């Protein structure tokens, strides 16, 4: 589903943030990418939804080279990817409901679908009662759950979560990971970057370890080893 072919990324002539990585992720997998800060996890994930372009090599989404996509195809691809970030990135002037509805509107969904699906995903992340609140009125854990609800509302093929638990307390972090696990159980591919040891060990899924831009381990049912 996602394939990296000899991908290298430099930022402004510095050392390679991602160094000659070849990697393939299949549909339905739950993959954790672990490593210290600066190992290149975020850069790798950003290249999936074309927030960054590789300096060398190619990234494929469903066998299409992302670099060859035009704007429209890129938008269509992004709607198939649900993105979750460490800093949540909700729209501050929109209510919880509107934040999620915006993603559906942008994807051109009908009003009936929006009215039925937004409460459904809010229920899934257990925040139905906060529908009319603004993001700043919620806790970090709640904001992240809203971000996940937004990421999955268009039924994406894949959810990419970049350090989703980075800003959260252990209990909120656990809840967020459980939601991601549930999404994966329902058939969606999930790629998760983190440096939270407990989370990785509890998942018992594929773990890719990165160090200085390179993949150092790739275990089918991995442990967090640095």
């Amino acid at each position, binding site marked *: 589903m996602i394939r990296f072919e000899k991908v290298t990324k430099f930022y402004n002539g510095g050392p390679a943030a991602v160094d000659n990585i070849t990697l393939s992720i299949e549909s339905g997998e739950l993959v954790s990418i672990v490593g210290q800060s600066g190992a290149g996890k975020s850069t790798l994930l950003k290249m999936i939804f074309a*927030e960054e372009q590789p300096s060398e090599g190619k990234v494929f989404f469903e066998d299409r080279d992302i670099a060859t996509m035009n704007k429209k195809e890129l938008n269509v691809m992004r*709607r198939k990817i649900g993105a979750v970030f460490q800093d949540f990135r909700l729209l501050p002037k929109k209510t919880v409901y509107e934040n999620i509805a915006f993603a559906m509107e942008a994807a*051109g969904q009908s009003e009936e679908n929006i009215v039925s699906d937004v409460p459904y995903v809010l229920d899934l992340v257990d925040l139905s009662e906060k529908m009319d609140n603004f993001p700043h009125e919620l806790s970090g854990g709640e904001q992240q759950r809203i971000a996940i609800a937004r990421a999955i509302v268009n039924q994406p093929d894949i959810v990419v979560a970049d350090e989703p638990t980075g800003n959260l307390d252990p209990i909120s972090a656990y809840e967020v990971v459980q939601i991601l696990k549930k999404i994966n159980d329902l058939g969606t591919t999930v790629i998760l970057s983190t440096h939270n040891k407990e989370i990785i060990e509890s998942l018992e899924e594929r773990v890719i370890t990165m160090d200085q831009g390179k993949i150092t381990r790739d275990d089918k049912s991995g442990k967090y080893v640095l």
Partner: protein
Amino acid sequence: MNTWTNIKRISRTGFIGFLRNGFISLATVLIMATMLFVMGTLMTMNAALSSTLTQLQNKVDINVYFVQDAPEKDILALKDSISQLPEVASVEYISSDKALEQFKERHKNDQITLQSLEELDKNPLGASLAVRAKQTSQYEGIAKFLDKEDVVGGSKNAIIKNINYYQNKSAIDKLTQIISASRSFGLLSTIFLAVISILIVFTTIRLAIYTTKDEIGVMQLVGASDWYVQGPFIIEGALYGFAGGIVSLIALYPFALWLGAPSQALLGSFNVYTYYVSHIGLLFFVLVGAGSFLGAIASLAAVRRYLRYKVAKQV
């Protein structure tokens, strides 16, 4: 995807954004209103200038005086040929009888003059033509035409006693200069202030949108098309301009009311209040229309700037 649904969603999002932006919206509307107020003032001032200059211009004419026994037929023939000149706005024939009447009217309080007029057994005043040009600068050409010998067919210029252009030449030239200088000054100051206003509007709206530049990146990452991201901002910008236009139009009213009588006293033919009331449609169209248009364009320019960051910056 349904275009109509999109337009509805974009408009609604724009409206909500305008209302939720609260203080930023208010500040932007007030700045827009100030700029549009300046534009409205400029429009009124230009109208006042133009009316005053036209009025001045209409006071200038040249008179062709005829000898007393000049046959009316020849005078009328001359009038016809003058009328055909492209520079001429109007030609008025004043017969010697009418000239006498006007003279009496002018001196009705002056018994001595009237008595001395009674002494004469015949009308001492000759007929004349009052020629008005379209532009004051054209009087010289008209005077030259009249100077030509064959202008009145066979009877030559024998019937013309005197053309008063040459006595008034320096005054007319001076007036021509003043009028053309005032027009250029009016135009230049209008352009200057309009450019400044537009720049201020662009900067203000850019600042208003700057606060949402991270959101633009998020919208793009969610997969919203460029058009879908820009749309609500364009609506919001147009609303700033629309509201600013209405506020400026309302703010102009007390000034027009207050300056109405003094302006008429000063300028004669021009009353600011009358102008405001009779041109309210035009003022609405220009201020509200220009405001909305400028707001929309400025918004579009600002959002496009932030769209260029294809990437939402990592915080």
